[in-house]
């Protein structure tokens, strides 16, 4: 089997705000077409790690590689070109509040494609329908609920059919059915579009339903404890913290 270049490589990365270290010595790969989960207790730096991957924060040490090419040592133009392959869903949707849902989803389409306004409208309707918001095209973000805002944010993240998707707590605030539909959508995006998906989440149901591989960040030791398939980590990890996390506190034995 040929050795594929990982889609995303995190090389010995340390994240810090000034002198305050958040996580150090992070080292893992994400293969193309994988659904990768970033897990950990509250405040361990999961969202911060995501921001380092999407180009909003620079690592204090180490590097991030996309398809083997350095992300942070590249020129700003190259970084911007790479960032166009990303679709990002922020924790509260981060919809532009002065624009309707349709205008929000249409903005990247207008920027990066040559579609006519009518074609753009069709794509927008499709994306909103995929997330269950058909008919809400002309609503403003302030007029819809938090869960709906999140789904609209997802529609916008998917607008250009990106090949790398980043989700920051996608299920937070969603009811169980919506959360399940979101999981199904993520699986479908991977299966049909071949997208690589990086998800920051605590939702155990989602982690086991969609996660191929994951990394567990620890707030106390400020480093990663393990990388692997979530089910395997739950059943056989030598780290008690990981097993306790993945079994919602059921498995608190100190040996595997």
């Amino acid at each position: 089997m040929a050795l594929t270049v990982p889609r995303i490589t995190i090389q010995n990365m340390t994240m810090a705000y000034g002198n305050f270290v958040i996580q150090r010595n992070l080292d893992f790969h994400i293969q193309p077409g994988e659904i990768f989960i970033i897990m950990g207790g509250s405040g361990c730096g999961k969202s911060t790690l995501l921001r380092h991957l999407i180009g909003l924060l620079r690592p204090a040490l180490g590097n991030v590689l996309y398809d083997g090419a350095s992300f942070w040592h590249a020129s700003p133009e190259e970084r911007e070109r790479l960032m166009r392959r990303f679709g990002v869903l922020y924790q509260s949707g981060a919809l532009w509040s002065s624009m309707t849902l349709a205008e929000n989803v249409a903005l990247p389409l207008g920027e990066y494609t040559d579609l006519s306004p009518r074609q753009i409208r069709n794509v927008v309707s499709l994306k909103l329908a995929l997330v269950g918001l058909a008919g809400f095209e002309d609503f403003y973000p302030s007029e819809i609920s938090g869960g709906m805002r999140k789904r609209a944010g997802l529609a916008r993240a998917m607008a250009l059919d990106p090949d790398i998707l980043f989700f920051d707590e996608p299920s937070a605030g969603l009811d169980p059915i919506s959360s399940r539909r979101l999981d199904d959508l993520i699986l479908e995006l991977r299966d049909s579009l071949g997208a690589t998906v990086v998800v920051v989440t605590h939702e155990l149901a989602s982690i086991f339903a969609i996660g191929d591989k994951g990394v567990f960040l620890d707030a106390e030791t400020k480093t990663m404890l393990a990388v692997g398939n979530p089910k395997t980590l739950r059943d056989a990890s030598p780290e008690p913290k990981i097993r306790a996390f993945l079994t919602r506190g059921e498995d608190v034995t100190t040996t595997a």
Partner: protein
Amino acid sequence: MDTAHIPMPAVVHVSQMADATLLIQLTGSWQLRTGVPELTEIQQQLDDTPRVRQLTFEVLDMPAWDTGLLTFLLQLLDYCQHHQIAVDQSGLPEGVRRLLALATAVPEREGARRGASRLSWLAQVGTATLTALQSAPELCRFIGEACLTFVKFALGKARYRRTDLVLLLQECGAQALGIVALISFLVGLILAFMGAVQLRQFGAQIYVADLVGLGMTREMGAIMTGVIIAGRTGAAFAAQLGTMQVNEEIDALITMGIPPMEFLVLPRMLALMLMMPLLCVFADIVGMLGGLIVATGLLDMSLLEYLNETQRAVHLVDCGVGLFKSVVFGALVALAGCLRGMQCGRSAAAVGAAATSAVVTGIVWIIASDGVFAVLTERLGL
């Protein structure tokens, strides 16, 4: 149930049993709203008793308890932990024991608690200076990026929404006419009034027209409009961009590859630079109208006298100087507002601070640049 139920006061009593054990007896209603004793009341007794090894509890006649009891016990447990005294909780009600267990389940994270630091006056001045110095490169970078964005705009390659620009033109320009009219009218009136009082002594009251005309067109029109716009629009820009920063909307623009400078800052700068000269002209005219009222009302000048003298004194150069200044002031107010908005922290209080800072920065820059213009126009003989 007895109708007149007077809650029993909460009482704690310490007594020493044999073998280095202290017995803490708790009686009464231990509730927040009826008042609970503090640890200090028994701390003296605990300190005085030598070589205490263990603490036990006895609860007598406690009809009700709530957080008041829990906070007292937590302080006591903390004290015991520091003095290596074992605590036997079996005498406490079960609910109390369970809640104490929950409260102590997750240990305090190290380094999380923030100490209250009182820096000396000198250290505060030093820290403030260093912060101010560190903000200078950021300001330069912002101004540089703004200039580059303008170049892109001139080349037609800037990415922004036309609808945003049109909306901003309406907000900054048309909707500001009322307040600009009011303030310019009063400024013209005041200028004329001050001048009239002095000039009348020399019989030179005709020159009130010159004073108001030149004062408004060269200086006051641009400055007063600039200050009004800084307070009105500069703060609005900072609050808009600051709130977008809090909601991660600006991050979403960045990750989507749309530079916030082009999408957000450029339309705002364009709107102000286009509207300020128009507002300035309006302010000049209304200001001279205010002067007219004083001249005809107080000084018994006729309308024609005033208008003729104004026309004689005010030249196109004067109007030009004022208009040019107003464009510059518009750019400065927009820069200040957008800069503070983008620098905004991620909380509601930060948005307020950003708006305040935008107004102050805008006004300071206006006045400072006016000083530079005063020297420049004098040198250039304008």
